[in-house]
């Protein structure tokens, strides 16, 4: 279980964005996080993904407290949690073709040998053709890029996936496709999913239960 207890965090001293927040993400289940924009949902996701150090409270991953954030957090902890961002264009390195973007976490953790096979398999699951894999980000649409970002988040086989407004910028068909991939992962591999969205209708269909900030 990925959880956080009594968490307070903010960007400027004295102005907490979140205060006294508890959240659990359980394996195999999808918890939805709703709320208007600006209420701190993305901040919560960043804390859970160990990208932001909370002022109070700490993140607990599968029973163990994780200390440190960003580079200071241990690599196995960081890679156990996958994160998909709202804007795919800003979330990828614009100089790398899609297959390298997806394979990057494998290279970073010393698993380069698995890269070609894993990337090919994941690309097929998220609906990217081999021809698209060789393209640069500015040559593909937002929907296709977000599929690549989802593949990248799943490439290390994380135990938890945080989708931070994953579908806000893409059309209805891509939304349905991305969510179906995540659901499949949750069902087959017991992935624990935190679905952040301001779209209550989507969360109603996607999440097992919904929490509001």
């Amino acid at each position, binding site marked *: 279980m990925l959880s956080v207890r009594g968490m307070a965090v903010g960007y400027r001293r004295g102005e907490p964005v979140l205060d006294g927040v508890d959240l659990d993400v359980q394996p195999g289940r999808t918890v939805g996080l709703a709320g208007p924009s600006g209420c701190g949902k993305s901040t919560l996701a960043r804390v859970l993904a160990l990208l932001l150090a909370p002022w109070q409270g700490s993140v607990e991953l599968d029973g163990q407290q994780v200390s440190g954030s*960003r580079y200071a957090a241990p690599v196995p902890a960081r890679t156990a949690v996958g994160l998909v961002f709202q804007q795919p264009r800003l*979330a990828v390195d614009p100089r790398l073709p899609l297959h390298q973007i997806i394979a*990057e976490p494998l290279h*970073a953790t010393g698993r380069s040998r698995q890269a070609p096979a894993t990337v090919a398999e994941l690309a097929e699951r998220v609906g990217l053709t081999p021809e698209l894999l060789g393209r640069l980000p500015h040559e593909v649409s937002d929907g296709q890029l977000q599929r690549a970002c989802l593949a990248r*988040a799943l490439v290390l086989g994380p135990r938890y996936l945080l989708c931070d407004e994953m579908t806000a910028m893409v059309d209805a068909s891509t939304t349905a496709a991305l969510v179906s991939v995540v659901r499949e992962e949750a069902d087959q591999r017991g992935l624990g999913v935190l679905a952040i969205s301001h779209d209550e209708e989507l969360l109603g269909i996607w999440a097992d239960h919904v929490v509001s900030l």
Partner: protein
Amino acid sequence: MADITVTQTVPSPAAPGPGWRSAARRRAGTPRGRGAPVRSRVRLLGSGGVLVVLVASALLVPWLAGLDDRAVDYAAVRRPPGPAHPFGTDEAGRDLLVRSLAGLRISLLVAAVCAVVSTVLGTVLGAVSGLAGGWTDRLLMRLVDAVNAVPHLLLGIVIVALYRGSVLAVIASIALTHWTSVARIVRGEVLSLRDRPFIDAAISGGAGRRRVLRRHLLPAVVPQAALCAVLILPHAVWHETALSFLGLGLPPHLASIGNILGDGRDAVLVGSWWIVALPSALLVAVALAVAGLGGSWRDRMVPRRRSELAL
């Protein structure tokens, strides 16, 4: 009820049929008029051509038979430019054209080394400053301000005076005064990239600091830094020429154009204008050509965005 007009034909999309006209318009904020592509090509080819010719001749001088920049001929002292000596001769009878080309070779070599050293130094310091933030960043930026506050030449002279006559001292004096602009540019680029989600994604994917720097930040920064190196070259040439002119630069056996100008200082007063004017013109031509090429490169380095197609 929306009503539309039914197309009567089914042409294949974007067919090269009749009726296509350009949608290009000269709008406020788009400075390039219709002549811009032509002008930029002229600049590119012109600069490139000049540079290739001059650099080639400078490099080939030692190997071309019969051309010796040290050949002294006291019978032909201070001859004005003429058919035998296109640039004239200097006070020892040496052909000025050959001597200038040899000097150009030295000037360019020294300047190139200086530009590279400056750029590497500036890139490293700028990247460290941008990535580390906090006190490191503040200290380094104050150092940049301090270096910029002192006139380059003065600082350069001080450094060179400590190690008279050494080529290394000349290189150091130029490198240590020109790295600051590179550092600022690189720091700015790193700062703008550091908080982008794709860095967060890399960290989440298990990358450590060094990998992020090596794989994501530096490659984004290198093109800008390389451009800086090219644009520093004319400055380095100027700086080295000034030092040599004052007699504080390269030793006489490695005569650069600055040395030639310094030697010819007195000759100008007796009317031998070509000894100073023509080698300087050569230097100016090279500097302009390099700046022109750098400018063309910078114009082409507009980042690719999907909005190019406005889809």
